[in-house]
C-alpha cells in the first residue's frame, strides 16, 4: 500500500478545521460521504425527506434532520431548508454529493455567504465550466480539441444551419443549459434541419427553461473517455487517469471501467494532458471530471464537457489508483494541499463498475418496492457501494440507482470474471433490478474484446426471448432451494 505511506505528509497530520459536515444528498453517495467523514473523525448530519425516514444514510449519520416532504424539489433541492439545517446543526461544511445541488453555483454561493464551506470547486469554476458553451470556449482557448461546430447557443435555426453546414452533417443539437442527454437530437441532413431544430428547442425550453441550442458535428463509433482531475487552492492540478464510460443506454452510463481497452497509449496521455491543461487554465479547484469523445479509428479526440463535482463512477478510479477521492475533496476544501503529486499517481490493475438500478432490465420500467431479502457479494477485489438493506423500501421519487458493484483485478478478463461470479451471489429480492442485463452485457463477445462504442447497447437486443427471461432465472432459484 505504497500510496498510503506516501500520503502521510506533514500537512495531513494537522487536524482538519471541520468538526461537522452536512451531506446534502441521499442513497449510496450519502453513505459513501458519511463513511469518509467518520474515517476522518468528523461528525455528520444527514438530511432527508419524509420518504427517507428509514434510509441507511439517516441511520449512519451522527445526527439527522428531516428537511421536507418526498418530492426532491421540496427536500433535496430545497436550498432554504438545507441551509437552515446546516446552520441549526452548526455544520462547518456541506458535501453536495452528485446530482441535486452539486453543480448549482447559486447554492455554493449561498453556502459561502452563510459561513458554511461548500465541498467542491469555487463558484467561479462552477459558472465557468458548468455551462457547456462557456466550457467549450475555455477549451478552444486552452488549445484543447473540441467537436467541429461552435460554442454559441442558438435560438434561430437560420443562423444555426450555417454552423451545421460548416461542421458537416450529421449534426447533433444539444441543450446549452441542461444535461443528462435531455433534448439531444440528431439531424442527418440539411433538409431536416429546421424542423428538428424547432422540436429540440421546444423540448429543451420545457425541460430547462432555456431554448438555446449548441450545434456540433455528430460523431459515430466513438468512445466516451473521461479524465479524473483534482486541484487544490495552491495551483496544483493532477489527473488520476481515465475512465471509459461507453456502455450507455439513452445517454445514461451503466458500465464504467479503467483503463480503457483499445485506447492507444499516446491517445490516453494526450487526453490526460489536455484535461490537466484545461483545468489549470481555468484555475480549477477540488475534484472534477473532463469528458471527451474518442474516435479510435481516426485517432482523434474531442472535449465535450466538464462535470464540476464528484462522479457516480469515482470508485473505478479509486480502485486503480489506491486513493480516496471523497477524503481528498474534504481535505482540499479544508485548505490542504493535494495529498499526491502527479508523479505519485500510480495505476495498477483493472477496475469495472456496474450500475445496479431498480428497474426491469428489458423494459427499463422503474421498480420501487420492499426489499425482503438482501445479500451483497464480497471477497477479494469486490466492492459494493449501496444504501440497501433487508427490509428497506426503495422509494419511487428518486433516481433508480440502488447499488454500484465495482470489481478490481490484475487484468480486465479476470475483472469481468469476478463481476460475473459476484452477480450470481448478489441477492436483491422483492424488486426488479438490471442485474440480468449486466450479465448479458459482460458475456457478450464484443464487450470482452473491447469492440464497442457509445451506441453499443442500442444496437443489440439483449432479451431476444422477450418476457420469458424471467421464468428462466426464477426456475434456477427454485431448483437450488
Amino acid at each position, binding site marked *: 500500500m505504497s500510496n498510503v505511506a506516501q500520503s502521510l505528509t506533514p500537512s*495531513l497530520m494537522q487536524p482538519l478545521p471541520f468538526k461537522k459536515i452536512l451531506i446534502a444528498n441521499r442513497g449510496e453517495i450519502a453513505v459513501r460521504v458519511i463513511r469518509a467523514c467518520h474515517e476522518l*473523525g468528523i*461528525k455528520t448530519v444527514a438530511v432527508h425527506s419524509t420518504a427517507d425516514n428509514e434510509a441507511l444514510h439517516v441511520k449512519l449519520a*451522527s445526527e439527522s434532520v*428531516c428537511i421536507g416532504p418526498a418530492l426532491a424539489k421540496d427536500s433535496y433541492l430545497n436550498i*432554504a431548508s438545507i441551509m437552515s*439545517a446546516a446552520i*441549526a446543526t452548526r455544520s462547518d461544511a456541506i458535501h453536495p454529493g452528485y446530482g441535486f445541488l452539486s453543480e448549482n453555483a447559486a447554492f455554493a454561493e449561498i453556502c459561502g455567504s*452563510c459561513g458554511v464551506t461548500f465541498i467542491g470547486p469555487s463558484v467561479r469554476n462552477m459558472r465557468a465550466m458548468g455551462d457547456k458553451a462557456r466550457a467549450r470556449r475555455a477549451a478552444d482557448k486552452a488549445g484543447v480539441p473540441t467537436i467541429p461546430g461552435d460554442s454559441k447557443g442558438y435560438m434561430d435555426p437560420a443562423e444555426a444551419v450555417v454552423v451545421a453546414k460548416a461542421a458537416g452533417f450529421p449534426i447533433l443539437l444539444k441543450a446549452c443549459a441542461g444535461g443528462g442527454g435531455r433534448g439531444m437530437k440528431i439531424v442527418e441532413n440539411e433538409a431536416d434541419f429546421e424542423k428538428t431544430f424547432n422540436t429540440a428547442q421546444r423540448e429543451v425550453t420545457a425541460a430547462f427553461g432555456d431554448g438555446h441550442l449548441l450545434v456540433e458535428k455528430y460523431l459515430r463509433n466513438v468512445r466516451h473517455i473521461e479524465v479524473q482531475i483534482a486541484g487544490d487552492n495552491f495551483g496544483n492540478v493532477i489527473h488520476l487517469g481515465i475512465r471509459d464510460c461507453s456502455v450507455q443506454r439513452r445517454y445514461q452510463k451503466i458500465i464504467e471501467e479503467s483503463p480503457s481497452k483499445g485506447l492507444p497509449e499516446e491517445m490516453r496521455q494526450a487526453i490526460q494532458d489536455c484535461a490537466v491543461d484545461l483545468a489549470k487554465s481555468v484555475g480549477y479547484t477540488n475534484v472534477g471530471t473532463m469528458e471527451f469523445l474518442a474516435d479510435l479509428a481516426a485517432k482523434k479526440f474531442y472535449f465535450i464537457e466538464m462535470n464540476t463535482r464528484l462522479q457516480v463512477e469515482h470508485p473505478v478510479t479509486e480502485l486503480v489508483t489506491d486513493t480516496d477521492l471523497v477524503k481528498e475533496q474534504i481535505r482540499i476544501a479544508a485548505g490542504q494541499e493535494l495529498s499526491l503529486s502527479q508523479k505519485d499517481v500510480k495505476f495498477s490493475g483493472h477496475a469495472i463498475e456496474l450500475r445496479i438500478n431498480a428497474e426491469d432490465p428489458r423494459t427499463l420500467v422503474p421498480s420501487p418496492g420492499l426489499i425482503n431479502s438482501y445479500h451483497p457479494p464480497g471477497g477479494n477485489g469486490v466492492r459494493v457501494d449501496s444504501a440497501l438493506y433487508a427490509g428497506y423500501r426503495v422509494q419511487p421519487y428518486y433516481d433508480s440507482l440502488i447499488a454500484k458493484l465495482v470489481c478490481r483485478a490484475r487484468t480486465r478478463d479476470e475483472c469481468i470474471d469476478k463481476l460475473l461470479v459476484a452477480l450470481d451471489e448478489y441477492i436483491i429480492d422483492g424488486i426488479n433490478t438490471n442485474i440480468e442485463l449486466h450479465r448479458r452485457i459482460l458475456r457478450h463477445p464484443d464487450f470482452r474484446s473491447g469492440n464497442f462504442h457509445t451506441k453499443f447497447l442500442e444496437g443489440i437486443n439483449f432479451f431476444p426471448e422477450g418476457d420469458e427471461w424471467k421464468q428462466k432465472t426464477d426456475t434456477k432459484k427454485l431448483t437450488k432451494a
Partner: protein
Amino acid sequence: MDIEEIRTIVNFLKENDIVDFELKRGEDVLKLSRGKPAAQQAPSFPAGPQYQPQYQSPSSYAAQVEPVFWAAHQAASGVPAPTAPAPTAPAALNPNLKKVESPIVGTFYRKSGPDSPLFAKEGDKVRKGQTLCIIEAMKVMNEIESPCDGTIEKVLPADGEVIEYGEVLFLINP
C-alpha cells in the same frame, strides 16, 4: 393427489405469495403453510464516529471560535437535533388532539426576545391564527400560528431546539 399436483400447488402459492392454504377433496385434506422469513430487522448503528482515527484528532486543536452569526443566540440552549422524529406517545393518549407540525427546518423559540413572555404554555387557551412560537430559519423569524381554537395540551420541543420538517411542536385540545 400425486406429488406433481402438490408441486403445482406449491409453485402457485409461491408465485402469488400465499402463506396458508387448505384443500379438501372428499376424504383427502391438504394443508400447506409457507414459513415467512424471520422479520427483517433494519440495521441500527451507534451514532458515529465511534473509532477515533490516529491521524486526525478533532479534540486536540484549540476551541473553535463561534462564528459571529450565532452570537445573537448565545441564550439558546444549543441542544443538538434529535435523530428520530418527535415521540408519538402523547398523540396516542388522545386521538382528538390536534398536532401542530413545523412546516420548515429551523430553531424553536418560545418567546420573541429573552425578556418577553412566552407565546404559549401548557394550559393556555389559544385562538385560531394566534402565534404559538417562532421558528427561526436563516435569520428569518417565522411565526407559527395555531390552526384552531383550543387549549395547549403539550409543548414538545425545548426552547432553542433544532426542529425538523414535520416535527410536532404542540398538541392542542380543540
